[in-house]
């Protein structure tokens, strides 16, 4: 097993469906609604790197969350006594999204229940996003004095300029049906419990397709939509990092602990 398997909170599993092998990375911290720590983000990246290298090659990847929601965002309790934590989280998030997007196999996000803030940003690393009608998605972080700019280039590729503006500036969450309407999600199911099996089925159907054609098509789409533009992606990260540890952020996060 890879290093990532030895750690808790991120799980790497495999399934073979009709001869096609798929990998499944699961955020496994359901008691905290899969709230992300820097280690978890690093482990997702390590698992994705491993999936890229292992033999036999998995031909598609599912990114899923254990418990009731896909991911509630960063574990903000870590920021309480650590001024550098927010920067660490943002930097790891950016790396992880880039790694997922650049895998030569399709990535399907199984976003049931909720994908909030950093959890919603993770969806931008996926090629196909599946959610359910009552799931909550979005970027409420401006309330906390945090900027979601880090996610902006790939969110813009997914939903367009105007909707990116709306989603990143308005802290209000949207439901799965609205996420489908604006193309943040590609499929929206009625029941949260159906999301993961559907994600596995979609991944299996992609895994059965010709490998080279899929890899070249994904690489070309990445080229066309800016997924390889490190300079732009770095600038987006830096825009978020510039606010990390600001007075506004510290005050607003501190208010979380006192309320």
């Amino acid at each position, binding site marked *: 097993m890879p290093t990532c398997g030895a750690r808790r909170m991120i799980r790497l599993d495999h399934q073979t469906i009709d001869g096609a092998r798929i990998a499944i990375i699961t955020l496994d911290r359901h008691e905290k609604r899969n709230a992300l720590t820097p280690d978890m983000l690093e482990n997702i990246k390590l698992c994705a790197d491993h999936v890229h290298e292992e033999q036999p090659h998995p031909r598609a990847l599912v990114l899923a969350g254990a418990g009731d929601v896909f991911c509630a965002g960063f574990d903000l309790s870590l920021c309480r006594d650590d001024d550098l934590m927010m920067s660490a989280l943002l930097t790891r998030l950016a790396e992880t999204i880039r790694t997922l997007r650049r895998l030569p196999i399709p990535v399907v996000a199984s976003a049931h229940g909720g994908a909030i803030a950093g959890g919603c940003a993770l969806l931008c690393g996926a090629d196909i996003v599946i959610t359910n009608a009552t799931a909550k998605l979005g970027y409420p972080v401006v309330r906390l004095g945090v900027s979601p700019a880090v996610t902006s280039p790939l969110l813009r590729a997914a*939903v367009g300029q105007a909707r990116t503006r709306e989603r990143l500036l308005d802290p209000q969450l949207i439901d799965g049906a609205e996420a489908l309407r604006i193309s943040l999600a*590609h499929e929206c199911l009625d029941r949260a419990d159906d999301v993961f099996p559907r994600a596995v089925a979609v991944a299996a159907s*992609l895994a059965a397709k010709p490998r080279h*054609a899929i890899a070249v*098509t*994904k690489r*070309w789409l990445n080229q066309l939509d800016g997924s390889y533009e490190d300079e732009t992606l770095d600038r987006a990260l830096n825009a978020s990092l510039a606010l990390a540890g600001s007075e506004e952020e510290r005050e607003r996060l501190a208010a979380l602990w006192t309320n």
Partner: protein
Amino acid sequence: MSDLALLTIENAIATVTLNRPDARNALSPELLEALLARFDELAQRADANVCIIRGAGKAFCAGMDLKRILDDATAIANLLKSIAELTLKVRTLPIPVIAQVHGAAIGGGCGLTCVCDFAITHAEAKIGYPEVDLGVCPAVVAPWLILRVGAGQARRILLQGGTLSGARAYELGLVTQLTPADELENTVMSLAERLAKAGPGAISATKTWLNQLEGGETLAQQVRQGAIISAEVASSTEAQERLRAAFSR
């Protein structure tokens, strides 16, 4: 000139017809050559204010015709280059272009649909990009599809392959209008008449400006680069095996 592609102009409305109905208007080297010539001819004409592209027979266009040239990497590269040039010619034509999509628009045919300023179809039409299922990469048409539906939806459509119904294609924005099959011709004609009556200078300037906004030369480079990528993948062993199996069915 070959009658594989026809051009007529009546009341300022040009109609270009893909005229290879026995092959569902599949884009062979000869058909592409004829289409390129027709669009060159049209670009020189001052008496057309709008253009309709349609297909003779049962389907608009079944995609690229690789059957006869499967063993010839150079011919495949040339075919894809021609498709790229055709899309660029349609896009840069200084008059609006409407795709009248009946029956099916597959692969390169769907690319032709996406590059038109307007595309009208019916709910039961079969539309899409099954390229990856055949081991082929739809790289030429990807930039046009992204402009139509956005990069996020394009990703799903191109990676999942298969085809969509006309109704679903309309929901995703891949076509711009849906009409009952038996009203398709009339619906297209009334749009063409509307466009033909508008100020030709204003329409042309607006289309040219929109082309510049969406990338102009950069986009053209991407489309041409896409032809090289598609040709490489179509000549791969994986694609050759899949295509041979599909042709022998």
